[in-house]
């Protein structure tokens, strides 16, 4: 029963992608919660570089020092931006971190049998795209890049469930009720900046926990549905459709870029898949490697949850254009077109 076998493959691949990404999603959400609860905005604004180029370079450097997967960085970036991290730094970090970190570089080296060519070019192309997006964002305010709360959820930093039926007594009154600043950003459990309230360590920890959970719940459903689409492609699309792309460089580059977007592989593992595309030209394999960590189905759905439509458009267009242009140029320069 090939149909049932495909269905089994689909279910198995979906779960594999979800289970693979889940720890990173949790890590990202816990980091996001900790940033929200323990990092005062004033310190962020005081210590981080503010110029467009320095901020972008700082974001790239932070990405190089942070081994993380693309699933976990999206809402961490949102939280950092909300905390006053320069947008250029935040977005350059978000796009570059999954690729330019030591773990990902090592995985690429191993997959390509120690040949550094692909690892080096991958870092260069991704850093270029991340740098351009970061520089563009550096000219804007963080508030204009993140979706506002839209008043969907009543929020406070009391640590209690809102929408519940316990009364807020005098001991639980919100400080400056009515006068406290409204939160500009956030998800379902977005709260007032903790620093405003000077809560205890226990309260901060609880706030971190609740923010972590809210972020996790925000993104987990996106991860599951993204994984289902990617797994459906693997399970149901006939092989000849993919192999038909390998003949021509000009088909192969965009073809593998699209494949990277659809497959939504982890940036630590996609090099092994790219290495198996032995019949594809090298620039097309590079396009696959550079595109996937910056743009895939999961990321697109997450961005839509978090960022403004304008930024989502930039995140869709700029990395794709940079990767295509860079790989096309390399196609001319690579001996034999990289075939």
């Amino acid at each position, binding site marked *: *029963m*090939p149909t*049932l*076998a495909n*269905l*089994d*493959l*689909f*279910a*198995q*691949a*979906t*779960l*594999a*992608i*979800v*289970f*693979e990404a*889940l*720890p990173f999603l*949790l890590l990202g959400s*816990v980091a996001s919660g900790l940033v929200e609860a323990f990092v005062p905005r004033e310190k962020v604004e005081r210590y981080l570089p503010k110029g467009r180029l320095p901020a972008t370079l700082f974001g790239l450097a932070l990405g190089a020092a942070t081994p993380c997967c693309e699933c976990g960085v999206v809402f961490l970036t949102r939280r950092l931006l909300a905390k006053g991290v320069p947008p250029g730094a935040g977005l350059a970090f978000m796009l570059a971190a999954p690729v330019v970190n030591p773990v990902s570089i090592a*995985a690429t080296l191993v*997959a390509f*049998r120690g040949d550094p060519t692909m690892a080096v070019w991958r870092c260069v192309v991704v850093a270029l795209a991340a740098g351009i997006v970061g520089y563009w964002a550096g000219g804007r305010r963080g508030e204009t890049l993140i979706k506002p709360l839209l008043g969907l*959820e009543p929020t406070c930093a009391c640590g*209690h*469930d809102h*929408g*519940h039926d316990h009364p807020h007594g005098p001991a639980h009154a919100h400080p400056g009720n009515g006068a406290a600043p409204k939160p500009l950003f956030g998800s*379902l*459990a977005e709260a007032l900046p903790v620093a405003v309230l000077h809560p205890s360590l226990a309260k901060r920890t609880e706030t971190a*926990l609740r923010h972590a*959970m*809210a972020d*996790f*719940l925000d993104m*987990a*459903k996106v991860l*599951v*549905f993204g994984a*289902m689409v*990617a*797994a459906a492609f*693997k399970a149901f*699309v006939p*092989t000849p459709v*993919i*192999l038909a792309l390998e003949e021509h460089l000009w088909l192969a580059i965009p073809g593998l870029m699209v494949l990277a977007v659809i*497959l939504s*592989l*982890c940036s*630590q*593992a996609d090099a*092994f*898949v790219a*290495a*198996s595309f*032995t*019949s594809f030209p090298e620039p097309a394999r590079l396009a696959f490697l550079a595109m996937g960590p910056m743009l895939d189905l999961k990321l697109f759905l997450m961005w839509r949850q978090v960022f403004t439509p304008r930024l989502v458009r930039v995140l869709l267009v700029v990395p794709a254009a940079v990767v295509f242009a860079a790989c096309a140029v390399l196609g001319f320069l690579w001996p034999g077109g990289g075939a």
Partner: protein
Amino acid sequence: MNVRAGVAVLWRRLDGLAMTALAGFLGWLVLAGNYWMYLNPRFKPVTGAAAVVLAVLGLYAVWRPVTRPSLGRGLCYLALTVMICLSEGGTQALSRVMDSEPFAACPVPFDQPAATSVPSRLTVGGTDYVPINTGELYDIAANGHGPAFDRPYAMRGFASRDPALDAKGEFVLYRLAVWCCFADATAVGFRVKVPAGAPLPAAGTWLVAYGRLVDAPPGEDKEYALPKMAFSSIAPLALFAAEHLETAAFSPEEAAMFAWHEKEPYAF
């Protein structure tokens, strides 16, 4: 508390319950389940830690719900539940009901034979063969001629046939290499030349091939794409000249390769 109120209480705690249930499933996978069906077992500690964190968050959310349940998340939990049911034997059960013959391509989730330890040499016909997996041998072949290239090896995998190879008395022996998760699995293998006069194995047979690496004939050192496999790496520059082929008992867990060693003892 009436039923309606009970349902309302449960609904408000859906997120926490779902997180706790998922943590329980992940914990079961790590400790006793078919972890290998989804992820490379070397990531068990990572998944185990995630299960603990998820359980803590989930139990907290049961105690004090963080957000209101939403339809989107409800559908997400439903989809995950369906996927788990299908993957953990559901599709095979369906197959059994529909055609009385469950397909064998997917792993059998229960009653797996225990993996047996592999001796350092497998002896057939007086020759000692080094047990090795197709991924490890692929690396040796790619490095070209050297002491490792010329040794006798035993490797196991699935047989794949196509008419062009049949005409040359060859087939492909491959296994799935799982680097991180099942979704990034690629088939890694060799074209195998069967011993003179020996029949070609049936497609899909799980077998052990004993033999040596030889250079691919001139004009045949090209990439070979495994039929029905989008991602495959079949060694282009070398063939495996089999001296002996034997079918073997198939343990689903061994269908995939999770480890690669550069020197003995190889992972087989």
